């Protein structure tokens, strides 16, 4: 982990573009816009929602596991077309976003998230808390995630995690 002394030098342009990427992504997932969601990923992406327990133990199983854009698209499609769930609202809160490294023009980014879920007739609850471990690349269509690991601290998930994080 880099602290502020060794943090890589970030151009104003990259900082601005990253801020837009994260804000747009958050807006997309909070809106449950599954049709737009795959557009944030590269063809060769890795998207995982994985427990901290597994991640820190080096165990590969992830709660949501998409290798490649095809699986990201399938996740969106199957969630929309093939699952039954109670209506809910989601709200992601991001915190302390920082570029920890730049390798081969790819930005490694880490940031905390808090995901609050309001289901049907119940009070809102914390569904997930954790951090993103991302690798962001510049493409002709703008910045995209080559890797997005959503590592959650929760020991367990309350009932279901229906939508992407």
């Amino acid at each position, binding site marked *: 982990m880099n602290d502020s002394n060794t943090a890589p030098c970030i151009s104003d342009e990259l900082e601005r573009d990253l801020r837009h990427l994260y804000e747009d992504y958050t807006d997309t997932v909070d809106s449950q816009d599954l049709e737009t969601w795959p557009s944030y990923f590269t063809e060769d992406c890795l998207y995982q*929602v994985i*427990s901290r*327990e*597994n991640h820190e*133990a080096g*165990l*590969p*199983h*992830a*709660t*949501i*596991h*998409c*290798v*490649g*854009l*095809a*699986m990201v*698209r*399938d*996740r969106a*499609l*199957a*969630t929309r*077309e*093939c*699952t*039954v*769930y*109670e209506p809910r609202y989601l709200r992601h809160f991001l915190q302390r976003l920082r570029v920890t490294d730049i390798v081969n023009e790819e930005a490694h980014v880490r940031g905390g998230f808090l995901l609050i879920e309001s289901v049907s007739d119940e009070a809102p609850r914390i569904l997930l808390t954790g951090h993103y471990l991302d690798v962001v690349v510049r493409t002709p269509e703008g910045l995209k995630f080559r890797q997005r690991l959503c590592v959650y601290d929760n*020991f*367990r*998930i*309350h*009932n*279901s*995690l*229906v939508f992407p994080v």
Partner: protein
Amino acid sequence: MTQGISTVLPSSPVKRGWPEEGITRVPAWIYSDPDLYRRELNEFFGGDSWNFVGLECEVPEVGSFKRAWIADRQVIVVRDADGINVVENRCSHRGGAIVWQNKGKTKMLTCPYHQWGFDLKGNCRGVSLKRGVHGEGGMPEDFDMEKHGLCKLRVACVGGSIWATFSGTVPPFEEYCGPVAMQRLTRLMPGRSLRMLGQSRQLIPCNWKLYFENTRDPYHGTLLHTFFITFGLYRADSRHVTAPQQGGMHSVNFAAPGERKGDGSITRELKRFRDIKLNDMEAVQFVDEYGDGEMTAMQLFPGAFVQQHANILAIRTIIPKGVGETEVDWTYFGYADDDEKMQRIRLKQANLLGPSGFVSMDDSELLKQMQNQVAGYHESIGVVEMGGRDVKPQVTMATEVGIRAFYDFYRHRLGL
């Protein structure tokens, strides 16, 4: 309302019995009654039963340990030079938890409270300040450490899986399972080394029996789970064996999705069926690893559900957390000699199961709704007559025989 309030209010609580129709009915009160819940924990999970506590590959070296839960009782699964031991995670001194981590490695099991030390078999090896300080205090001269070890559970290891019981009277594991369940278990775990792929844990706000029934109920499988129907993984016209075991205590279900009866017309009748194509078909393609074309789902009473769904291998542990809450822990595994492709397929297919599973998500969402209704309408009664009124094994998924057989066993066991 024609009568005065004073005459319609019952003078004593409604008698909580079983409907006279017997096992074709399930009364709703059993899912929210706190006294019954306590009995179930004591007599089932804490009593004459074998419970899944982990895989041997989770504790690979001498001193490796993991914490496991048998209902609300924590145990430590630990390996010593002679093999696997399971002991209560409860100090023999004051009852505090010895292990606070979920996994680790140690030479001794030491209670943080007063530093009593136990070896990896649970024998007491040290009592702090046993002789007192400067000749004052300390334990009585005749205090015998040998009588103050950790409580040890009976252990059975089958093909890399670890099972434990608090009971001194329950039959050995193999006898407890019976021949059919043992055959299904050793089909998946013949002694080939296993590889842990990961754990997934979720808390479903429902009574444990609702979850338990759901995994024995093939009837809902092709109706609730659109994903199954859409991708032909589990269909009403597949050959499906639904076979209660050991007087309804366990349940063995298996299906051969490739073998279909008829021309597919049953599936076409299902209202929500339609063709959707996935971009990555590896998530749903089934590699026939065992050469029999079968998928298997086996429930071992009270808390284990052993599953081979396509190429996903998982053992679910049902951990009741209160009368209306159930933790489900999924242990995903493969074989140590899986090649890269097979491991990739297992990990991809796991998207069907767990808290975000395209299939399992339907169940967790549904069971929460069930709990709300059976708790609210606690005087209501459920009907389980699909496939008849008896408890004999059937070759169909259009049956609730697994649920009837379970309640046959349950009523006898609890005298209900």
